[in-house]
């Protein structure tokens, strides 16, 4: 049985699931996500994790590019302020992203598209909850179409 192209597209659209790109810092949040895994906590599989040495490694261009190239939401997670492995990295992240988040909202992104959270290595449950929360919010918002090339 053959299906027409539009039917395939329709089926694909029906199962649209939000896609989240998560930038996790190596020392806290990545370990936190790991803990969520080894503790067998359930969270939606919509997240693609990218491990970075420190949350201050995250260039705002990473976030923008993720949103423009297919992500429906971006999560940035790092150590709690004061707990950075590199002493002060996440303080810089905080300043930078406070400002960048406002800039993204100013040009038309919904506030839910970018989430920044502090997740320590002991907070596996917090990581799982964050992902659940994001998936719910993004599913409600629908696919991200801002600043995308319409082909």
């Amino acid at each position, binding site marked *: 049985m053959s299906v027409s192209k539009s039917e395939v597209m329709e089926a694909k659209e029906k199962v649209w699931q939000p896609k989240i790109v998560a930038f996790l810092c190596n020392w806290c949040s990545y370990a936190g996500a790991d803990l969520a895994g080894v503790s067998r906590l359930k969270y939606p599989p919509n997240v693609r994790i990218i491990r970075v040495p420190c949350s201050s490694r995250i260039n*705002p*261009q990473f976030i*923008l*590019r993720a949103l*423009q190239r297919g992500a429906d939401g971006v999560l940035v997670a790092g150590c*709690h*302020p*004061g707990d950075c492995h590199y002493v*002060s990295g996440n*303080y*810089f992240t*905080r*300043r*930078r*992203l*406070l*400002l*960048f988040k*406002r*800039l*993204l*909202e*100013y*040009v*038309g*992104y*919904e506030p839910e598209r970018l989430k*920044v*959270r*502090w997740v320590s290595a002991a907070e596996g449950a917090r990581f799982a909850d964050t992902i659940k929360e994001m998936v719910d919010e993004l599913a409600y918002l629908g696919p991200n179409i*801002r*600043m*995308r*090339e319409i082909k």
Partner: protein
Amino acid sequence: MKEITEILRREAARLLKEGIEFFIGYAAGSIPVSARPFFAARPEEVDDLVFNTFCVHNLVKYLIRYPNKRVAVVVKGCDNGAVSRLVQERHLDRTKITVVGVPCGGMIDRNRVLAELPPAARIEAVEDRQNALVIRTGQGEHVFEKKLYVMAKCQVCAKNNPASVDIMLGKEAPPVADPERDPFKEVKEIEALEAAGKAAYWERLIRRCLRCYACRQVCPACSCTECSFEQAVPGWQQGAMWLTKAKTLPDNFHYHLIRAFHVAGRCAGCAECERVCPVGIPLMLLNNKLTKDIKELFGEAPADACGVLCTYSPADPDEFA
């Protein structure tokens, strides 16, 4: 304005005789309602120098081209921020340059004046009378009240007399700013829109961008030797660049947001980016948004030499907890 031009020429001639290699100022433009940047290298060339209400250009960025020369430059109050910016970032050696400050009574937005003249009117002369600008054309005299026709940045300018310059010409100018005008009025209007409304508003503007990079070239804060958007990499690595050469909406957005973000906290508000834009994108709306947020979030903290994003305070607001 005649008077200030006289003083300017006299000072320029003196500096050139004293061993300055050249003096960067303004000369009359090709039509009466304009000016152009002018480099005087010999004392006899100073007679071309002028200063009037059309000297809109920020001349400071020319200095980067001559790091080892002794150069003098004319600055208005809004250009003065560029000097300290470039000195702080070690593009300029403050001891080699001579900064000549001129009191500024506001610069006229030429496009708005021209739009009100009768079509195809040939401008014969422009006369500057204290509070009014008189333009004589073949069809008679047109009087423009200066206060209503100054550029947007002048309407909120609080520094029309440049501070800490080497030589100050003439007497102090009275303030130009309209005290009732909120500098962030337009920004607040956009902020009040819904997400979809904001997106539609910006998409219409950003789609026009040709990515000529004039806004970057002219910006004193955008003076990196290698720009993150135009790196010298071989062709086979071009795919790894942030932007392609093609003019597409996502790349235009990427460029404009990141350009604004790169100068966040370092923008001196000279509005040159907006002035040089060939398609008239109001870029100061992006810069002002960041300026406003920085003020709200981090206060008027003593700025680090490289801007508020190069420093931090444990007491910063934390909405990510």
